[in-house]
C-alpha cells in the first residue's frame, strides 16, 4: 500500500481511523448496536435501554452522530422565529409546569387578539418567518378567539407561517367548537394555521400522566390529534418532557409510540426532548437535569427514532453551550432566535430569552457544521 498515491491512500487512512472509533464502541459493549446502526436496522426497546444505561457517553454520542450525519450531513438548522404565549390561564395545572396559573391568580394574564397583533406588528422590520403560538387550556375564551387570533396574525403579516396550538389545545378547541378534531383543524387551517408544535406530549405513560397531569389529554388522545393533523396534510413536531419521575422504560415506550405513529403517517418533522425545569413547579424538590442526561436524551432519540428527519437541541431549555455540543450528539437543529419565551423562564430556565441569529450561526460554525436558516417546513432560506 505504501506505493499508492495520496488520495488512494486517504481511503485506507480514514477506514483505519473509523475502525479505531469502532473498537472503542465495542469496548463500551455496544458493538451489536453499532452493527445495527451501520446496517440501518431499527433499534429495539432493549437496545434503547442499554444506550440510556451506558456509562460511556462518548460511545452513545458517537453512534447518534453517525445517524445524524447520514440523515443531515453537515447541515445544522435554525429558524428566525417569534414566540407568542397568548395566555397562561390553564385548567390543567400540571405538576411539572410553572407557567400555567388558575384564572384567579394575580400572575394570570391573557392577551386579546389586538394585543397579539400588536406583538406581531412590533417586529415587522425583522426577517421572521414563523410565529410559534402556545398557551394554556383557558376555561372560557371562546372558539372564535382562536380563529380570530390566527386571522389577525395573518392580517398583520400575511406571509408568516403560524405554528400554533399543541395537540392538547387542539383537542380543547374541538371540544369548544363541538366539532370533530379533523373539522376543527380544517377550520383552523382556513384561518391561517400552518403546522402544529410538539408540546403537551410530556410522557405518554398513563402512570406518569396520572401522577403529574391528570387533567391533561391522554397520550392516546395526543397521538390521535397528531395523526389526524398529518392525515389532512399538516406537519407537526413531537416532544418528551424528561428528567422528572419517569423511568427509562417509560421514555422508551413514549419514543416507541412516536415511532409507530410516524410509520403510519410520516407527518412528524422534528423530535424535541425537553429537559424538566423544577423551579416554581409542584415538583420543585426534584433536581435539574444534568448535562449527561440532556445529551443522552438527544442521542438515544436520534438513534431510536429512525423515521424522524430531525432532532432538536432546544437551547432555551438546555442552554446555548450544551445545545451547541448536542450538534455532535445527534441534534441537527437549534431552534431559533426565539424571543419572549415564557414557559421555560417561569420554571427558572437560565438562558437569555433571545439569541441573535449571528450568535446561532457562530455556535453552529464552531461546532463544525454548516449553518442553515430554514423555514418551518425545513425549506432552506439561506445557507451561511
Amino acid at each position, binding site marked *: 500500500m505504501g506505493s499508492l498515491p495520496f488520495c488512494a491512500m486517504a481511503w485506507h487512512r480514514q477506514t483505519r481511523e473509523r475502525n479505531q472509533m469502532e473498537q472503542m464502541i465495542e469496548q463500551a459493549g455496544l458493538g451489536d448496536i453499532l452493527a445495527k446502526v451501520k446496517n440501518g436496522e431499527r433499534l429495539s426497546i432493549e437496545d434503547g435501554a442499554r444506550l440510556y444505561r451506558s456509562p460511556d457517553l462518548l460511545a452513545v*454520542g458517537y453512534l447518534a452522530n453517525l445517524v445524524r450525519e447520514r440523515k443531515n450531513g453537515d447541515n445544522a438548522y435554525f429558524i428566525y422565529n417569534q414566540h407568542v404565549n397568548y395566555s397562561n390561564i390553564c385548567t390543567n395545572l400540571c405538576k411539572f409546569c410553572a407557567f400555567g396559573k388558575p384564572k384567579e391568580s394575580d400572575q394570570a394574564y391573557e392577551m386579546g387578539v389586538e394585543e397579539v397583533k400588536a406583538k406581531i406588528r412590533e417586529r415587522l422590520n425583522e426577517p421572521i418567518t414563523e410565529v410559534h403560538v402556545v398557551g394554556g387550556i383557558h376555561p372560557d375564551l371562546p372558539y372564535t378567539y382562536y380563529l380570530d387570533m390566527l386571522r389577525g396574525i395573518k392580517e398583520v403579516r400575511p406571509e408568516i407561517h403560524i405554528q400554533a396550538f399543541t395537540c392538547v389545545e387542539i383537542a380543547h378547541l374541538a371540544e369548544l367548537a363541538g366539532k370533530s378534531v379533523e373539522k376543527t383543524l380544517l377550520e383552523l387551517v382556513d384561518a391561517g394555521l400552518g403546522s402544529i408544535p410538539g408540546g403537551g406530549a410530556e410522557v405518554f405513560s398513563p402512570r406518569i400522566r396520572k401522577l403529574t397531569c391528570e387533567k391533561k389529554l391522554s397520550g392516546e388522545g395526543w397521538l390521535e390529534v397528531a395523526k389526524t393533523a398529518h392525515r389532512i396534510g399538516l406537519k407537526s413536531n413531537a416532544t418528551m418532557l424528561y428528567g422528572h419521575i419517569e423511568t427509562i422504560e417509560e421514555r422508551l415506550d413514549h419514543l416507541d409510540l412516536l415511532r409507530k405513529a410516524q410509520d403510519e403517517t410520516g407527518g412528524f418533522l422534528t423530535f424535541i426532548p425537553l429537559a424538566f425545569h423544577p423551579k416554581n413547579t409542584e415538583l420543585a424538590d426534584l433536581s435539574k437535569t444534568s448535562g449527561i442526561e440532556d445529551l443522552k436524551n438527544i442521542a438515544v432519540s436520534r438513534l431510536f427514532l429512525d423515521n424522524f428527519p430531525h432532532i432538536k437541541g432546544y437551547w432555551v431549555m438546555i442552554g446555548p453551550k450544551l445545545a451547541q455540543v448536542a450538534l455532535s450528539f445527534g441534534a441537527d437543529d437549534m431552534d431559533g432566535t426565539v424571543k419572549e419565551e415564557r414557559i421555560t423562564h417561569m420554571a427558572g430556565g437560565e438562558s437569555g430569552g433571545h439569541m441573535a441569529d449571528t450568535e446561532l450561526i457562530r455556535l453552529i460554525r464552531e461546532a*463544525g457544521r454548516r449553518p442553515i436558516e430554514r423555514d418551518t417546513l425545513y425549506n432552506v432560506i439561506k445557507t451561511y
Partner: protein
Amino acid sequence: MQTIIDKALAGERLNGDEFLALAEKGDLYQLGFLANAIRQKKHPEPMVTYVIDRNINYTDICISACKFCAFFKAPEDAAGSVLTNEELGKKIEETKVLGGTQILLQGGLHPDKPFEFYEEMLRFIKGYDIHIHGFSPPEVCHFAKLSGLSVREVLIRLKEAGLGSIPGGGAEILSDRVRQETAPRKCSADEWIGVMEEAHKLGMRTTATMMFGHIETMAERLEHLDRVRALQDCTGGFTAFIPWPFQPDNTVLAHLPKTTAVQYLKMLALSRIYLDNIPNIQASWVTQGPKIAQLSLFFGANDFGSTMIEENVVAAAGVGFRLSEQEIRTLVEEVGFTPRQRRMDYSLV
C-alpha cells in the same frame, strides 16, 4: 491523523506539529476519545476530586491594567480597596466552618505596600492553621521588584512566613507577543516560568493555568503548553493544569466573541493529550457552568477544582456560575464517579 492517534494512545509524547495537526483536524470525538483514554490510564480509579477553598482577593488595586481583566481598579480609582485583617479573619473562619482546607490568596499588583505587608498577612492567616495557596508569579515578581530582592529570596521569605503553595494564575498565554499586546506590565513568560522553577526547587508545589480564546493563535497556545511541559520535565512540581476561556464582558477586549463550549472541550482534551507529564487536569465550572463541566469529565478532566466559596475575578467579567459542594458531588456522581475532597497536593481528606 492516524499516526498521531496511535502515538498518543500508546502513551508516546506528541510533538508540536502533531499537536497543531490534531488541533486543526481532530473532531470532537477523536479528541474526546483520546483524552478520555489517557485520563483513564492515568487515573484508573473511578474518582473525581475537588478542593474546598475560598478565593480571597486581598486587594483589587492593580498597576498592571491587563486588557482582559474586569476585576482590577487603577491605583487612582477611589473604589479600590485592601482587605483588613478583620475581614480576612472572618472569611477564613467561614471557610473553615464549611470544611475548607485552604485559602487561595491572590490580589492585584498594589503600587506601594511594602514586602513586609505580605509576610505579615501570611503570618496572620497561618494563625488560623489553614493551607495557603497564594501569590501567583506576577505578584511574586512584583514583590521582588518593589523590595529589590531576588525571586528566590522573595519565595524563601514567603515560605517562611507560611506560604504553602503557589497558584498558576497570571500565566494567561505564555507567549511574549500576546503578553505585550494584552498585559504589557505583567511579568514576561520567562519570568512566570522562572518563578515556578524556583518555587518547585524550594519544594513548593504549584498549578499552571492557561487563559485562552482572546488574541492568541493556536501556535501560541502550543508555545504555552510546551513551556509548561518542559518545566514539568525538569522539576515535576506542577500538580495540575487548568485551562479556561477568556470571559470578555466588562473588559477592554469586550468586543471579542466568547469561546464556545465545543472549542472549550476541544482545548481541554488537547491539554490532556499534550501534557503527558501533568497528572491532573481541572474542569472550569466557574466559566462553563455545571453541564459543560460535567461533560469535561469525558474530555480529559479528572478534577472539579475548587468549590470557590468566594470568587470575584470571573464574576467581575459577568459570569455568574456558583456551585455548592453538594452540587459538585452530585454532578460527579451522575457521571458514575466517586467525588472525593482533596488537598492542594491531591492527597485525599
